[in-house]
């Protein structure tokens, strides 16, 4: 994890991957530690984040996965808050064709909504499901739509001297935020003194979200597919059936795959009219307004 301290700060090379800044002297590297021993699954973080950004339904910048473990009566419940890892080597940034997503020099991985074309390459690239396409319809139509969005580590708050919204709201006090390159910071102290894990370390993304007390099963990707309850399965099917319209390749389990493919095709065609309208609107505004 991280780079050797000796590495000097390289200038951000244009068009290329921003060099990792974790542990690099003279740079800031904002990071989050999530102390799972303190997480109570209240989902205040998710709701705080949703209200902070007026996020549409069906979309999460942060969410809490819940796993029940063990057999009766020695059963336990495990919570796992998830969000963008603000990777030091973000695949999403690497793969974006327009530099719409980029790594801020202080470690935030951010989105330029005005540059994003909505190609979703970055969604395919992100190993953590941290990205989503904003739907066409949302409460405040003046906020970005039909472009990709993600957790911003609340840079608009951090710049103003506030912790991120989810950290502010965290009832258990499980989320700790700060500059990991500053040895005095709480995050640096925790990462140095506690046993921390990151998600999918083998992918070389070097995440900046560290977990204390991580449980391997809840962090494991295949587990979340194989070990679902009927309830979660049904909910997911509902989600895939009813949260469409943007040409996503969602497959409702238990239905014939090829009819799902056809459905998917229909979903694509369905988006064209509103995209066309949107496009015309944009022209009108620029030309006549």
């Amino acid at each position, binding site marked *: 994890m991280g780079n050797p301290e000796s590495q000097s700060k390289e200038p951000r090379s244009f068009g290329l991957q921003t060099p990792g800044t974790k542990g690099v002297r003279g740079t800031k590297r904002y990071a989050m530690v999530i102390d799972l021993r303190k997480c*109570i699954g*209240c989902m205040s973080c998710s709701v705080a984040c949703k*209200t902070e950004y007026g996020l549409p339904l069906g979309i999460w910048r942060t969410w809490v996965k819940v796993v029940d473990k063990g057999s009766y009566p020695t059963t336990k419940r495990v919570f796992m808050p998830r969000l963008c890892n603000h990777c030091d080597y973000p695949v999403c940034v690497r793969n974006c064709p327009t530099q719409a997503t980029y790594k801020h020099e202080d470690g935030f991985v951010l989105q330029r*909504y005005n*540059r994003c074309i909505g190609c979703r390459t970055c969604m395919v690239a992100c190993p953590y499901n941290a990205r989503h396409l904003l739907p066409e319809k949302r409460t405040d139509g003046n906020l970005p739509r039909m472009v990709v969005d993600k957790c911003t580590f609340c840079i608009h708050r951090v*710049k103003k001297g506030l912790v991120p919204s989810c950290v502010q709201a965290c009832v258990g006090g499980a989320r700790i935020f700060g500059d990991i390159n500053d040895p005095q910071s709480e995050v640096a102290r925790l990462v140095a003194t506690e046993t921390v894990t990151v998600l999918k370390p083998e992918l070389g993304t070097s995440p900046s979200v560290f977990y204390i007390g991580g449980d391997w099963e809840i962090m494991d990707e295949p587990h979340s597919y194989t070990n679902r309850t009927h*309830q979660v399965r049904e909910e997911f099917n509902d989600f895939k059936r009813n949260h469409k319209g943007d040409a996503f390749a969602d497959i409702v389990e238990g239905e014939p795959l090829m009819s799902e493919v056809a459905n998917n095709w229909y979903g694509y065609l369905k988006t064209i009219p509103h995209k066309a309208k949107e496009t015309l*609107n944009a022209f009108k505004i620029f030309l006549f307004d």
Partner: protein
Amino acid sequence: MAEIRRREFLLASGTALAATALPDPAEAMELELGGKGFHQLRTFHPRVRSHFACTLCPYYDGGFTYAENGRIQKAEGNHEHVASRGKFCAKGLASFLGAYDPDRIVTPLKRVGPRGSGSWREITWEAAIAEVAAKVAEALGDPDAIVVNEGSSQDGVMSRFANSLGSGSIYRSCAPGLGGVAKQEALRRMVGVPFLLPDLERAKYVLNFGCNIMETALPLAQRLTDGMVNNRLKLVTFDVRMSNTAGRSHEWIPVFPGTDGFIALAMCQHILSKGLADKNFIETWTNTTVEKLLTDLAPYTPKKASEVSGVPEKTIKRLAVEFAKNHPATVYSMNGVTRRENGMDTEQACTLLAVITGNIDNEGGCCLPRQFQVGVPQPAPKPIGEQKVQLNHALPFQIQAKSRPVKVLFNHMSNPVYSAPAASMWREVLKDETLVPFIVDFTPFMSETSEWADLILPDVVAVERHDLVSAPTSLWPWISISAPTVKPMMQAQDVRETLKKIIDAVDADGQKGMKAFWSFTSAKQWVEQACAATPGMEKNYKKLLTKGFWPEHGKIDSADRAVVKGGEPLTPEYHTYRQSGFATPSGKIEVTIPQLQKNPKHDKLTNGQFVLATYKVAYHVLSMTSNLKYLAEIHHSNPLWINKQKAIAMGIRDGDLVRVTTTAGYLVTRAWLTNGIHPQVVGISTSVGRSSYGRVAKADPLTKPPAYAHAQLEDADIDDNVWWRDKGVNPNEIMPLAAASQHGEQAWNDTVVTVSLAEAGDVYGTIHVDNAKHVAIFKQLMG
């Protein structure tokens, strides 16, 4: 969207964010935990902050709302508040959505067509007030025929209204304050106060009986996590199912329902017999002695407790010793043990554990509540008669039997057609115009109860309301204020102002002596007067407005959340009883060993029979939050929890449709097989299974908005993005009435149900209930 101008378009496309977010690195050295709010893109756009004390649940956390252009954009906890310490639960955070709920009622509505037909006509406030006043004037000859269902508002304005009119017919679907009557009464008799606050941050050991602290008691939950990690306390939770709290506890002890008291008493006995009790405390501060306790407790052996509860004797003994040896230790208990037939006894039994180990009002123990007694504007009318809290849920039966004549029924902040037991009876009675000639509901939302009203008068929602509250959630007393800066949405009007107008119309010349109690001009002034009537706050109203709470005991350390004064962590004052004793007649803790009974209904459960636990989840407050989209998205369905092994033995698989049958009827839902529930218990969460409130609550975004909805509140997100279609099932329709003989409250958690695979023709969500059976149960109950 046609009105988007070029500048907005640029904003929408994110140019503004890029311009502000890109070049300058985040400069802040120490990040602050709250108190300010900014727009995600327009960071230069200031947000207006108001003080907001969340009143969705009785913990009343202090916080803020942030508004932009007169519209609230965000709510959060007040980071300087000694109790909330900046934290709101998911419900509190989402509360402001209620103000902009597209299905919200924002104008007075008058019913057209038959009751419950769902057709409404907007009328003016003047016409509405005149109509109510006329009905009230008619009923004045028989004032008790004016019935008020007070609900969970905490300022007593509905009682004041009834009493002003000379009526003592006040009902409550719930008792505001923590723990309900059973807990409050038990504690009052024993220690002289209605509540004991566990000092969770400083305890070494916590025994939790039937409280889902991490989901329902958020101000305590944050202290619990601090204690668990910083102080390495051990948490043991007794619950019939694995709530979040049980699942995060060091030990979850699944008990047979209603037997916690036996375990608590057996633990007491074991502690006493091992000589681990605090003899000194018992002899000095209670009305009993170790010897007497030992004789009184003789019947409650760990062996017996083990037999009734199913918890191994060894475990009971071990926990008893651990609890006694880990000083300080604390005990907390709630609905799981109190909302049942033996609720008061069990509460006393649990508290006895703290008493015999001397864990009363000590650091890390069970502390006496520290709280302001919030006053009401003076003069206030005298209460008429005794408040009939006991017979709450009997009201519809009494109305039907005509033993309680009703001319006008006022409902406020309560939703009995969903939340009360025998909910279907409420519906039947409210439907009948001969039984209840006129129904007025003061509500911002179309609840299952509002559907039956003749007149709906739109009340404000929590974030728009002026309030003054205090709760014993911290070891330092506090009082907080809600002082909104946004105006109530459209024509919504604070119920206090509405009631005042009704009184003014009824008693226009003041001759009837009612007007004297309604001298305030606005809700804001009500709060000022209430403050003036609060002991210790008489002249402090202005101070409340600076921080939103008072007094300021110290600063909250952002790292470990301790209260710090002058650089030193502040220690609360403990052992307060040493000065003046306990508030009991003897001045000491009055111990009576309860005669515990196991509910006889639970004695011989046959193979398909279970005890039903209905419980609350962290993401809803009974009906208050039903239509709030972010909460409904997290929790919208409530499959039947059933023990996995047991279900498999019964031939029930995960997701199978099952019938849950009570003595009054049955419902059809899906089984959720889990390892997290006692084999003789099934569980259904409350708050979902809505037939009203709106498109979100009903998981039905495709229907047209109701006729009374206003275009101004439209939310494209709800029209398009509500993805779930399962709305759950309400268990209360088939919930038989069960008034506990000791305290008169519904014994929610004693209900016995039969679970079987669904039969041909059963569809998910079916509820079949026979009100005649509800009536028979009621008659049997009344003897």
